[in-house]
């Protein structure tokens, strides 16, 4: 039997994977992937809890997150391509024109 706990554990594991990806990866493209994993970890949580409480609000919110993630990726990828054309690299460590 798969209970709510399982879903939440899955969500937490996914979130941790995404977080580690965000922290460790240096490639901007990989960063986008990690962000997607983070968002979808949250989506899993939302959908599971929504089902558990029989409340559609959570699922609705998950849809919103999917829409926002899509638009974010669209804008982000566009910027990424322009950046690559200009600099020739999408390594995070090369992007430090401002530092204290």
């Amino acid at each position: 039997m798969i209970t709510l706990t399982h879903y939440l554990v899955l969500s937490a594991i996914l979130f941790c994977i995404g977080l580690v990806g965000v922290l460790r990866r240096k490639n901007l493209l990989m960063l986008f992937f990690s962000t997607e994993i983070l968002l979808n970890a949250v989506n899993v949580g939302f959908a599971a809890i929504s089902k558990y409480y029989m409340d559609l609000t959570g699922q609705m919110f998950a849809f919103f997150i999917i829409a926002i993630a899509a638009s974010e990726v669209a804008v982000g990828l566009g910027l990424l391509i322009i950046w690559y054309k200009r600099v020739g690299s999408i390594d995070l460590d090369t992007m430090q024109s401002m530092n204290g």
Partner: protein
Amino acid sequence: MEKYLYLALFSPLVGSLFASLFGAKPKKLFVGLVASTLLFVSLFSSIYLLCYVASSDNIIHVKLFDWIKVGGINIPFGFIVDPVSVIMMVTVTTVSAFVHVYSLGYMKHDEGFNRFFSYLSAFVFSMMVLVMSDNFAGLFIGWEGVGLCSWLLIGFWYKKEDVAREINPSISPSWAANEAFIMNRIADLGMLIGLFLIYWNTGSLQYDKVFENISTLNITIVTLIGIFLFIGAMGKSAQFPFHTWLADAMEGPTPVSALIHAATMVTAGVFLIIRSYPLYSQIPDVGFFIATLGAFVAVFAASMALVNQDLKRIIAYSTLSQLGYMFVAAGLGAYWIALFHLMTHAFFKSLLFLGAGNVMHAMDDELNIFKMGGLRKTMKWTAIMMIIGSLALAGIYPFAGFFSKDKILAVAFDSNHYILWFMLWVGAGMTAFYSFRLIMLVFFGDERYKKYGFHPHEAYWYMLLAMAPLAILAIIAGFFEESFEHFVTYLLPEYHFNIEGIKEVGLIGITTLIALSGIVFAIYKYSKGGFNPKWKENFLYKLLLNQYYIPIIYEKCITKPYAKLSKIAWKEFDVRIIDATVDFIAKIIYISGFKGRVVQSGNLSKMLGWMVIGLVILLLLVVLYSPVR
């Protein structure tokens, strides 16, 4: 009637504000004309109010608006026109109106012409608030207002450099202005304490309520109130030991000396005592102290005037001495006589000062009377008017000073204070002597000024015209004595003389005798070329010329140690403790910022790392401190 009250009170303010619009502009004649016209509006309103109050025995009392209304405190902005305040209003506006006209000529070539009229009218407004207020708080506002205007006007030529005390005893206008202001501040602290005591013990600052309750208070409290209020009066009226500022205040333009430092502001202290007569008549001991101090200052100041060589300083010491006379009368309970002398003194003293202004103008601002002489030939009218003023000051019949000064001497004799009477009597002789010493040295004798290359000339006709009414008042004001007494004793207590007949005549005779002998001695001595120069080596002469060395003692014993103390407080306490504490806090923030700025490396993955750390901390806090476990 209220209309006239507001006209009298506010037209100087309007004049001042109008003139201040042109304060930084070059000289505009109409500014002075408008200010003077408004002063005359105020003068005529005051005279109208005087006639009204005198004819109907009514008191006009208006409440303009509530001023301070917090908790139990209720201090309205109220004004009262009763016999005492209306006499003050008429005196103040008369002198100031004519001084305004005189200033049109005196300040003609000064670049600060507009500014001058703004200050002068502001002074008159403050003085009107002082005398017309119906409570102690309003009086205090006016009191501080006149102090401020006095500071502005003494330091009117603030650009002059400081010089050594040996060359100019007042050092510089701005120095003198600060001295006057600080001296008054010290005394005003006493006055403020007095006001607090009044409020604490009576629960009000309104004159009528305070004086109603004053008889129910403990006599110690009343004595304390009387002493503290008198300290304030000592500062404003330049009584010993606060007297040094008045002579130094002569650095201001001469019309200012005439208006503020002779006729009006310095008499505010006497006015305060007169106004609070129900308080002071409860405590005759304090009254006696006031009278003693007054008599002391009368002689003390007159003695300094005997030898001084500075035209304006001589008249300033004479003002001090006359203020002493007023305090004797007020201290001995003869309040109406003090007010009477205040009024007559205002007329003849401002006349003397304006005359001195004419002489200064003629002599290119030279003040040493030993460089003048024989000026009567070129300055006939000034000479005549100054002689009138001096005769009035010396107390010669039928001039105004005779009536008021004789009454004060009679009061001292009548109340069996023979020592006070003797001091005042000696003072009267000195007054006569130094007045005519000044007249002789300035207007008669050899024309010493020729040696110094001066070309004296008579003042403008309208300056003389402005002095003429004051001269007339200096002659005739004494004859109003009986109607004046009748009028003000409606409010003030009467004074009953015990001596009559031959004794009274004898007293007048003795006083007139010493005044006349002082005059004759001065004329005799100075028509023969003055005193032997050997006198200048005399210790007494040096003592008097250096003002008993009091300014130097003050500087050595008070100013310098205080400056040292301030320096210690600055270097040790302020810099080392307070500044160090503040700097320490600033340094911690600066260093932490310096150390912490590596966080802002610009590296996205590091920044994300910090963000995650922050997130974890916040999550931990939520878990630890959340109310639901």
